[in-house]
């Protein structure tokens, strides 16, 4: 896949263990189906990035609603979810949610126990890179997926680098593959 599965920022070389590339969004669908207690972690770019069928946040809400996954968002965009009538969201700084996800004793965002899958989207590249690194090394109990538009080597699975247009299309395929809950 060449550049598609290289770190987007050239110097952000990780190490021996790199994310498996998601060549087909159906892989994400399968991973979500297999998960007992997934969570989505959403960064501030969700309210900035315009895709073909709306802002990124609109895609995220559709994913959450169809798959029945709760969202933790960076606090500055929590109100954007609420404005859209979406309430299954908790605002929490990224470092705080990452710190909790790394704790196997944590009761989870809705008190249902530790999460086994965390889906990351909407982050500045290097910020997502670092947080996913922390989870890769210190929370073996949780699998991570990055569905941002650039390859995140520290996730367990990551979309490859792609154009904005292709990213939107991949998210649509992902949404289409999820059963309505």
């Amino acid at each position, binding site marked *: 896949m060449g550049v598609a599965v290289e770190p*987007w*920022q*050239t*110097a952000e*070389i*990780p*190490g*021996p*263990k790199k994310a498996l590339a998601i060549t087909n969004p159906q892989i994400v669908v399968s991973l979500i189906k297999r998960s007992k207690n997934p969570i989505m972690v959403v*960064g*501030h770019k969700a309210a900035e990035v315009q895709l073909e069928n709306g802002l990124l946040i609109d895609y995220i809400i559709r994913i959450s609603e169809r798959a029945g996954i709760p969202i933790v968002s*960076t*606090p*500055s965009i*929590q*109100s*954007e979810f*609420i*404005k859209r009538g979406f309430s299954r969201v*908790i*605002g929490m*700084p*990224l*470092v*705080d949610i*990452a*710190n*909790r996800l*790394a704790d196997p004793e*944590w009761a989870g965002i809705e008190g249902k126990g530790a999460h086994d899958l965390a889906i990351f989207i909407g*982050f*500045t*590249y*290097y*910020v997502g890179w*670092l*947080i996913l*690194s*922390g989870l*890769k*090394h*210190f929370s*073996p109990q949780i699998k991570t997926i990055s569905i941002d538009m650039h390859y995140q080597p520290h996730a367990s699975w990551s979309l490859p680098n792609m154009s904005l247009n292709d990213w939107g299309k991949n998210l649509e395929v992902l949404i289409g593959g999820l059963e309505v809950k």
Partner: protein
Amino acid sequence: MGEEKNLRIKIGELKSDIGLLRNLEISIGKLIGEEWAEEAGPTVFPSITDLREWDLKILQRYKPFYMPFCDVCCLCTFGKCDLTADKRGACGLNMAGQQSRIVLLACCIGAATHISHARHLVNHLIEKFGRDHSINVGGLNVEVEAPVTRLVCGVKPKTLGDLEDVLNYVERELTRLLSATHTGQEESNIDFESKVLHAGMIDHVGMEVADIAQVSVLGFPKADPEAPLAEIGFGVADITKPVILVIGHNVPSAAEIINYLMENGLYGGVEVTGLCCTAHEITRYNPRAKIVGPISWQLRFIRSGIPDVIVVDEQCIRADTLVEAQKIKAPVIATSDVNCLGLPDRTKDDVDKIVHDLVSGASPGALILDPAKVGEVAVKTTLLAAPKRMKFKAIPDTSGIIEDAKRCRKCNECRRACPNDLPIPEALAEASNGNLESLANLYEECIGCARCESACPVGLQIHSFIVKAAEKKVKEEKYKIRVGRGAIQDVEIREVGGPIVLGEIPGVVAFVGCANYPKGGKEVAEMAMEFARRRYIVVSSGCAAMSIAMYKDEEGKSPYEIFSGRFDAGGLVNVGSCVANSHIAGAAIKIASIFAKRRLRGNYEEIADYILNRVGAAGVAWGAMSQKAAAIASGFWRLGVPVIVGPHGLKYRRMLLGRKDKPEDWYVYDARTGDKVYVGPAPEHLFYGAETKEEAMVMIAKLCMRPNDTTKGRAMKLTHYIDLSKRLFGVIPDDVHLFVRTLADVPITMRDEIIKILEGKGWKENIIPDPTLLPRLVRKRGG
């Protein structure tokens, strides 16, 4: 615990068999502190482990969260070792240990830099002004002249010579700390972290020594709230004159340039400009000098061709300065043994010969390790080089940019190299069609690193394109900055100590550190102004102090013209350069010692406990990038002051985070009874990275809450926290109930909605203790 007991013998006249000796002084060190009546505390000149117990207490509450920057360790030939997912390397160290070890290394580098800077300054000043030159940082207004040194070392330095003893101690500790990072030394990440805190503490001592030495001797403002305003910005230099540019942090050479100009009646004819902290120092030395900007302005200013001679000292100087200077045909003078640039040592050469070689181009630069000679050479060279250079620049004209942009291969390498992921390829595509607007728009967020240029396979000078495209904006960069004032006066501390400790001044917020911003320096200025308007005490230093200045309101005033320079509610206090950060720590310490009359001498743990529980202060290093910034932050952590960094600061690879969802972490002793009392997560974190400016602002307000706040003070702090959260996040914070101890804490204007939240959360009233984490400070044992 270390000791600094030495001896000085002074003999007026001595007759012996070999002759007569007069005024003989033998100094075998000194007995320092003998004139200080205050009883010494338990940790005078503390060793690495003397404060370990305190460190473990705070690290138990604020646990490290690591974000490895690299999965491997390559520090010894056992390796590389793969440490992924907590594997152990050949030496047995695991990933947590390795990350904390790297943090310690970074802090040792930072501390070493300040300490060696201090040693150089003290040696130079002693050589020039004598060992007995007195320490004077604020005349009668500052009795506690060296709060950090008094606290850590238990000594009261009175002369420059006394500072040598202090430096002996910090140099010794630094060597011990560095040794702990060797293969097969420390294995516990928590012990590494304790050493990080020790490194930060001695870093603060080193910074204080450097600044009080230069303030005492060089005529800098002495704790002056009304320090003069100086000019700052790319556009402030009078380019009709020869221009000298000084870059770095260590002022002696730059000061000698000004001396030479003054002594020879030349100052009106030559511009002295500075970048980074030497720029702060030259305006403290003479406010007619001008500041170009923070570190990120280096490349753009050199390429502009404005400087006729570039004089570099040490720290945060680009490692391609000589290469860039040659592009504009400007000679470079290196002045520090830690930054020689590969240049020949001309220290002992004849001045006129050096000048001739530099002006003729026979030599691109010279290393001169004598500040006075630097002054003379720099001025003479500038006067002769300027007419020859004719401000020769390395920035292309518009037509050149348009033509060059057509060579772009659209490979995206520039964008992938850009720290801020700026849309450079798109801007180049527009430029190739003759529209430079998108390139110009990148200017505000460009940190001036030029990684884009290094990455470009066809060698486009992308940074220069951006600067040229934004030329109009660049030339209009003319602002005012209040010159670094140095220490905070004792009388100011007496006036605000009570309101701060009781919470009635909602907090002290320090904007410090480098210029590696995610979205330009404007965000720092906006944050500083917001908190000054909210009547917090806002303090600034270093590059952040410059970024705050480089902003104008609707009336064209920069923040230092709008807000007072007093250390008071609504003030905006520029303490000065990096080493002046020690005065921010010093102010917190002085609140404990002057206002609360806590014993200061060698009494670190008690003072830190006081600050953590009572002094609502937070540091913000929005663009921190350096090892020095890491060391400075760690000094604040040990002292109980939380630090927020911007998103690039996450690359320090470790946060120190509290868990507000774990009530057991938030108990203190009530010093009145010995009972353990829940006080809520105040302050919630010790080292925190924010994604956005908005997130940082809400967190600043939150981190200023302290267990000791009075109900009036807590209500005021909650008002700011909730108000900022509502405005910036659109919601009331979901943790408000954790910060309400009694109903009197609830802000009156928000009473109904907060009480509803409290009821929903099953909130129960709690007492407000006399808080401490130290059992030994409990006056009466509880049940």
